[in-house]
């Protein structure tokens, strides 16, 4: 189980959080008015259901919080549903993808073989990336999310174990992430 430890990537660092964290509250405030989030954002601040809880995404260089990533299990047999928000005012290209790869590896380490990802239909960058990786949404929740002044469809993507491996390998190459980045970071 990786809960409680800092996960270090090339550009970002994931820090476990609690509901009292002032940086988390600031990010939550940004999230309410920003676009780049998907699904009903369920923060699990304590490790429950075997899931690793919420992590602040920080700029590794400066330590500034730039987003939050979390997972939730909506029902007993459902895969972990992963939600990610990156503050559009401060993020740089690739940071969200790197946070995704690192967090998905934590979920895999926790024994999650299937993952589900909610993406706002307006998030064209992530949708293009997923399409390029051969992934298509299995569900389109029409106008399910109100954000940035309008309703957005939420697209649900399902990653089987093999699909996850494919996505991880291709994103790791793209982002120049080591395969064992998470493991090496475990000691930090």
């Amino acid at each position, binding site marked *: 189980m990786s809960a409680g430890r800092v996960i270090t990537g090339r550009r970002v660092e994931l820090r476990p959080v609690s509901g009292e964290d002032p940086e988390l509250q600031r990010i939550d405030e940004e999230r309410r008015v920003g676009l780049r989030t998907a699904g009903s954002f369920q923060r699990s601040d304590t490790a429950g259901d075997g899931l690793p809880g919420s992590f602040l995404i920080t700029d590794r260089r400066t330590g500034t919080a730039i987003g939050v990533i979390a997972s939730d299990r909506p*029902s*007993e047999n459902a895969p972990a549903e992963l939600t990610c928000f990156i503050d559009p005012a401060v993020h740089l290209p690739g940071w969200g993808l790197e946070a995704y790869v690192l967090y998905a590896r934590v979920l895999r380490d926790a024994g999650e073989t299937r993952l589900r990802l909610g993406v706002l239909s307006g998030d064209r960058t992530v949708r293009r990336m997923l399409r390029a990786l051969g992934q298509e949404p299995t*569900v*389109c*929740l029409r106008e399910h*999310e109100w954000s940035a002044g309008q*309703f957005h469809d939420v697209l*649900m993507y399902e990653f089987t174990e093999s699909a996850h491996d494919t996505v991880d390998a291709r994103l790791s190459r793209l982002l120049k992430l080591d395969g064992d980045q998470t493991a090496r970071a475990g000691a930090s």
Partner: protein
Amino acid sequence: MIPSVLGFAGVEIEPVESDPELLAHLLRSPQNCEMLGASLTSTTMASAFFERTSSELWSSVTRIRAARLRGLILNADTDPSSLNTRVICLAEGDLDGVAFAISLFARHLFWSFPLHRLYTYLPASAVEVAEGFAGAGFQTEGRLVEHALLAGHPEDVTVLGLLRRDFDAWATANAGALALKDGA
């Protein structure tokens, strides 16, 4: 809470504060347990469920009254920031009339609360209930793979959704008395 009984095509729904015996009975079906997302094995647990549900924002619990159909329709998991809520229909008997009960409940929710969207998650094997939702204007939005566990076996879940404008178009075409624009 629905102020009084609503009726359409021989099917009625009535507000109910608590009916733990009926809920516990309906939850003997694994499909219904999955739809509710809870396994309430006693009337005490069912009573607590009613108390909890009735205290939630923009929630209603109704009992279906029809000749050969009985059940409960309620809503839960309301997201006030995105104006959506999940509709749960637990029914047994002649499910041909369940579409009327669902349409009455949808009309009540859209009329009473500023909701933009209703949705439901159904085990893929709950074909008749899914047809009831479709008959009330809900559209299939996709399938979640092995989302549910029914009697120990993984099962896909179908997602259906209904937007306020969809409901009004459906009602105008199929049941003018329920249309929001011309109703009441």
